[in-house]
């Protein structure tokens, strides 16, 4: 068992470093964001949704995920980025979020998924406080992957709705 596990790790060429985590990244308004891949339950295409009355605009509604009622949050609206029409690339990433006293299954709507990166957490830099954005609070850190910069999301804050 353990040997097979190690093999798998070697094949994937993942450093054995404890610090390294895999992140699923996605695009939103040309920016790339990342979430810990272990929190990702599944990726779905956008589908018809049941609206929840009197909910904040970024809560699009709820869907049926194999018998469980799962709320869906539009991350653009959550971050105050202007909405766009959903298209064929629009996806819903279903996440398991550990909130203060419960773990909840929730979905986020993003423009498109991008890639999976192995990122050592110590490489992440703190977010500079930009005056023009309140969204810094939702970002746990910034990392450079090659030429690109990826913002790692603080899911607890992002999904505490």
């Amino acid at each position, binding site marked *: 068992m353990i040997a097979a596990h190690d093999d798998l790790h070697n094949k994937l060429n993942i450093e054995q470093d404890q610090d390294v985590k895999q992140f699923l990244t996605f695009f939103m308004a040309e920016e790339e964001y990342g979430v810990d891949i272990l929190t990702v339950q599944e990726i779905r295409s956008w589908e*018809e949704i*049941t*609206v*929840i*009355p*009197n*909910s904040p605009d970024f*809560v699009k*509604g*709820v*869907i*049926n995920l194999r*018998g*469980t*009622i*799962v*709320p869906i949050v539009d991350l653009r609206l959550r971050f105050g980025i202007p909405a766009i029409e959903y298209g064929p690339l629009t996806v819903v990433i279903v996440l398991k979020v550990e909130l203060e006293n419960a773990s*909840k*299954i*929730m979905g986020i709507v993003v423009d498109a998924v991008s890639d999976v990166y192995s990122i050592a957490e110590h490489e992440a830099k703190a977010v500079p406080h930009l005056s023009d954005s309140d969204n810094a609070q939702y970002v746990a850190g910034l990392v450079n992957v090659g030429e690109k910069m990826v913002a790692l999301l603080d899911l607890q804050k992002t999904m505490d*709705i």
Partner: protein
Amino acid sequence: MSIDLSQFYEVFFEESFEGLDAMEAELLNLVPGEEDSETINTIFRAAHSIKGGSGTFGFNSVADFTHVLETLLDQIREGSRDLTAEHVNLLLKSVDCLRALLRALQAEQQPDLTEADELRIKFEEILGMRAASKVAEPVQEPLSENSINTFQIDFKPHHHLFKTGNEPLYMISELAELGDLETQAFQDAVPDITDLAPEDCFLSWRFFLTTEKDQSCIEEIFEWVEDDADITITLCGGLFGDEVAVSAAPSTQVETDNKNEKAATKPDAEVKKVSAVKSTTTNTESTSIRVGIDKVDSLINMVGELVITQAMLTQLGEQEITEATIASLQEGLAQLAHNTRDLQESVMRIRMLPISFVFSRFPRLVRDISQKLDKQVELKLLGEQTELDKTVMEKISDPMVHLVRNSLDHGLETVDKRVAAGKNPVGTVTLNAFHQGGNIVIEIMDDGQGLNTTKIREKAIKNGLISEADDLSDNEVNELIFLPGFSTADQVSDLSGRGVGMDVVRRNIEALSGSVEVSSAPGVGSTFTIRLPLTLAILDGQLVRVAEHTYIIPLISIIESLQIDITKVSRVGKDLDVLRLRDEYIPILRLYSIFNHQGAIETLDKTLLVVVESDNQKIGLLVDDLLSQQQVVIKSLEANYQKVDGVSGATILGDGRVSLIVDISGLIKLSGLRKPGSQELIIESKANLEAS
């Protein structure tokens, strides 16, 4: 090998609570002087099991307390002590006390031992144990610390030793584990083969054991065969060769580490278990359920049928589609629907338990309260086998307790009054449960004085709930007791309590999608009738359309659905429309407006009105269209999202879409139609309309 005992805690708690329930029930049946031995035995066994389990699992406070209880019961059981009424009362108190201790431990809280200690002192007084108090356990001390001694052990088993199931070989192996062992076997007692009884033991042994362990370890090995063998253990004097006989009396007490070790091996879960337990739920609603084997068997049967149907459908699916296969396909699908429905019913039945689980707490309650009030009461339980969903059952218990207390306190008269009225001095309270349609009905009846309508009316006027001018029927007056803050007791007794009134009872029952009503006749008695859905997991719903959204209204709340006759609609205040329906005024709530949906029909005469009732108040919900009626499985919105005002839950429709279930009383609050807990606005608007 280490075994995590915490995995057995939940089973232990559950069986202990069951044991306490049984103890309580049996105790209530006891009449001192005419108790039968089986009843006492059952009570004893329950206490005994709780003691054994709590000791084993490290709940020492419970074990210590149960010990005195058990000792007393043992004496009664053996006939060396007569049971008195005082014993029964003390034992009943102990049941409560143990329940509290166990609940605290179950919730991983430090139990409050004040009451247990008080009760224990009382028991110890009865048992005459006070003076001796705690008998110090004689602790076997080692001869000398860390010294190595040699013991000579002579072991001569009696012939019958094998027939006790003991095996000298294993004992010798045990000895060998204690240190260096030299063994001599004596065969001289073995008879000639012709006389040899094959099942008897003829061998004997002499051992020299050099060990740092003390004598008690050796004695322990032979503990079980003390009476089945001649055993002598002597300490050899080591270097000097003197033989010193060791007496059985404990040697001088020396404080050593050994003693501490002994204490440490006793599991003390009360101190350390917090880290060991998986979930941190603190509520005491049990999380497991006992299911009768017949229910499981019927489930297995249904799954069997389901598998057969599925196999048949698969086979059909592999064939070429012809007219004939379509017919059998339809047949198969019908069969599948049938199987699924049966299976659903069976699964739901798993959650159903007989209401006797709730009823069983009342004999005690009635006994205690009637004693306190000095009234004579007979409690009758009917329909105890009526089944009810476990969750509903857990939640209906408190409202029922309140109603029964109320009947005892306010309903039943004192013995004097009853005799004066020519009634049986013993009052009767009857609990009756039965099924009616998809509901369970629970009646709480008393043959007391009935509700005093004059008094209720006066009180209601005084509290401003109605006006002098209101002409209410007796029934309408009786209904007033369910309004917030209503209490007719001349003085607030500690039984009815201040603040917790009938309004809370009604609210709790309505929270279970149920209803409660009262009927009463002066001098004859009162009956409270509770109606509850059999289960909280499934609901009969009316699907309605509001703009492009589908909502579900619980069928149980719906009185009627109608097209609005606009000539009967009047506007009250700024924006409230009220429909005159026969002799009632129904406020109209526009669902689309409360839920902020665009694109719904807004003209009253083109829409439909669903008249619903909640909190004893009728309102009309404006919807675009009525769709089908169906049974829906209730899903939680809160599990992954949060509570939504005006919505009690969600469900998944046949096509896989999610639909929200409307919460009527939540809607009323949301609409601002009335302040929570008050009926003012409705009555006011009625008055206004009649004046105009």
